[in-house]
């Protein structure tokens, strides 16, 4: 490409690097708003001209940074839009490095979306992992460090699966590193490795435990970013490379239900939302597995809608956490009097995720379910519908009920502190709420960006409305009838992270007690035993002196013979003179030789 092509992520990266110098309050806020908005505008510019740009040579390879096509357009759009919303939500955060981490994280996501080959994908994949972990660490609690550490290790492992897959594929295909559809009908080792790398980031069980772990702990702003980018970028990558991979259908369905089950047990509002990310991403994974045009459209649409409503939900519960310092149901309740607007916004998010008519989830989620039924995978269709009842149950009912209504478990201090959050947070929630409604009401806004325009879908049919309303209304009935069973309990639920948490402890024990001890013993033995061969050898080789081992080497060989305690004498003062003179002799000899 001769024309200069500006990568949207470049704006964010440059902005992030300049941020620490923008601490003057007059400059800070405009700058914080300007950079994401500029990025968003640049995404619009870039999306206007599909094609391949930004091809750079690196070692033996041509790396593609800018591939703009039907799939990257919609994801680029929503990611940069969410970056604007998230930054506005975090506008009050004074620490420039938290913004920096968030922006680099988004830059990683945008880079992964627009890249055209696996090497660049891996670059941005790692950028996402290494920058997002700071959003956990910035919470600055004692637990934050350990949770971030686990998060980093898990994502590194995921990245390595991906890398191993890329390399195997690179070799097996004779040098193909382009990022495109894999031959999923004839999967080989590398297909599975790449798939594991991708589904780990999409939090598909059994690789999901990092998500509730980290998202429940991230900073208030951090989790708003995290809930949008990591899993959805992974969904993008899967839609691009694994569309139609059958095994993903059962995995996605299990995932959708798994998240629901753990959400029932969860006591922390933000962790509950995290479990519902897993549940909702399950729909998208199923969609990728089905792989038809409608299913991929549905996956993209649902990712699009999900980023906004889940961001909104995290903003709502984040506001509660920000204002009161609490996020557990057993420490909240009855807050509608104190935080009514937060309630309204969260409710809009809850209704969107529950797929109420006129809200965004209604027009996106149903597309995947319809694709499942359309492909005659009835069990998947029914189970996903079942999971959506669970979604409404928790996010639409349980979260609002136990925070804003229900039994008031607030301490006096919590109650005193509770009120609607600062204006910028309210504004960000307002934008997200508006967009959730816009998507649900004005279909072309999102539908016009879907990758396969010819696969038409009409959500507002009488039958679909009737079906959805029946399920939702009777779920609500069930909720109120079984309310007593749902009372939150101050417990945590053991999940598959048990294995690596306990496994890590076992490894560290092994490391400390076995490996290190053995290593120390080997060292000690050699200290004692090694002297003997050295002395023998130096005696034995002394005859070799004349053979050309020059004075310097030889002198010390003889010197070390008396190591047993004479080293000190050898050391204290003389050796440098020995060496100095030896060096002088050598230098003189060389000079004499050169000029002779």
């Amino acid at each position, binding site marked *: 490409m001769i024309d200069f092509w500006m990568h949207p992520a470049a704006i964010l990266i440059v902005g992030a690097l300049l941020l620490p110098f923008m601490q003057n309050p007059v400059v800070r806020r405009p700058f914080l708003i300007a950079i994401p908005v500029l990025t968003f505008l640049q995404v619009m510019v870039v999306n206007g001209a599909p094609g391949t740009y930004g091809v750079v040579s690196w070692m033996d390879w041509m790396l593609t940074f800018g591939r703009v096509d039907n799939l990257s357009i919609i994801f680029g759009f929503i990611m940069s839009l969410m970056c604007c919303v998230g930054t506005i939500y975090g506008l009050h955060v004074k620490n420039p490095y938290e913004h920096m981490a968030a922006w680099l994280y988004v830059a990683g996501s945008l880079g992964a979306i627009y890249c055209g080959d696996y090497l660049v994908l891996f670059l941005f994949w790692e950028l996402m992992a290494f920058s997002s972990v700071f959003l956990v660490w910035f919470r600055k609690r004692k637990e934050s460090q350990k949770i971030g550490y686990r998060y980093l290790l898990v994502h590194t492992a995921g990245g390595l699966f991906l890398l191993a897959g890329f390399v195997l594929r690179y070799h097996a295909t004779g040098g193909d590193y382009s990022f495109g559809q894999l031959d999923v009908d004839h999967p080989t080792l590398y297909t599975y490795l790449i798939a594991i790398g991708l589904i780990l980031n999409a939090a598909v069980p059994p690789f999901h435990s990092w998500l509730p772990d980290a998202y429940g702990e991230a900073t208030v702003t951090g989790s708003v970013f995290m809930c949008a980018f990591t899993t959805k970028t992974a969904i993008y990558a899967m839609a691009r490379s694994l569309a139609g991979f059958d095994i993903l259908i059962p995995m996605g369905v299990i995932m959708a239900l798994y998240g629901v089950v753990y959400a029932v*047990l969860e006591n922390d509002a933000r962790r509950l939302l995290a479990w519902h990310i897993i549940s909702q991403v399950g729909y998208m994974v199923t969609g990728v597995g089905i792989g038809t045009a409608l299913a991929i459209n549905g996956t993209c649409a649902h990712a699009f809608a999900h980023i906004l409503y889940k961001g909104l939900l995290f903003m709502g519960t984040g506001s509660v956490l920000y204002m009161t310092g609490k996020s557990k149901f057993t420490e909240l309740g009855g807050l509608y009097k104190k935080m009514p607007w937060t309630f309204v916004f969260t409710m809009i998010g809850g209704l969107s995720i529950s797929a109420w008519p006129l809200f965004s989830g209604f027009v996106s989620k149903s597309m995947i379910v319809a694709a499942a039924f359309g492909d005659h995978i009835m069990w998947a269709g029914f189970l996903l519908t079942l999971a959506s009842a669970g979604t409404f149950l928790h996010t639409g009912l349980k979260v609002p009920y136990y925070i804003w209504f229900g039994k008031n478990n607030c301490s006096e201090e919590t109650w005193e502190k509770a009120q609607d959050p600062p204006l910028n947070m309210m504004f960000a929630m307002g934008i997200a709420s508006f967009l959730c409604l816009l998507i649900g009401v004005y279909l072309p806004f999102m539908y016009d960006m879907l990758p396969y325009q010819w696969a038409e879908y009409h959500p507002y049919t009488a039958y679909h409305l009737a079906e959805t309303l029946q399920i939702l209304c*009777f779920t609500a009935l*069930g909720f109120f009838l*079984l309310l007593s069973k749902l009372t939150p309990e101050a417990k945590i639920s053991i999940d598959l992270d048990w294995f690596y948490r306990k496994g890590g402890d076992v490894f560290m024990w092994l490391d400390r007690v076995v490996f290190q001890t053995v290593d120390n013993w080997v060292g000690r033995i050699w200290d004692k035993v090694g002297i003997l061969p050295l002395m023998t050898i130096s005696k034995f080789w002394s005859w070799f002196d004349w053979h050309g081992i020059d004075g310097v080497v030889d002198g010390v060989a003889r010197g070390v013979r008396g190591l047993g305690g004479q080293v000190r004498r050898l050391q204290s003062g003389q050796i440098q003179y020995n060496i100095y003179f030896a060096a002088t002799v050598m230098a003189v000899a060389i000079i004499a030789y050169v000029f002779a």
Partner: protein
Amino acid sequence: MILVQLIDYLRDRLKYVNRVCYVVLAAVAVWGSLVAYDSHHAHTAMEKWPFFWSIFGFLACAIIIVLSKWYGHSGIMTREDYYDD
């Protein structure tokens, strides 16, 4: 503010609110069954049974709550400082 007042107003008349809700529920169920009866949108024959999705919704909710709680209480839920030692 108005929103809070509205909520308080409704909470004071919870009985009436509940009654309205039951009427809405019944209406939705009946209307849904009528729509499903002659719709080509239904994917399977059983969806044409009366109140199919209503029952589905209610059972889904009940099953999720009961099964999850059973699963949780079978040893999965544990004290909050489980990992701390």
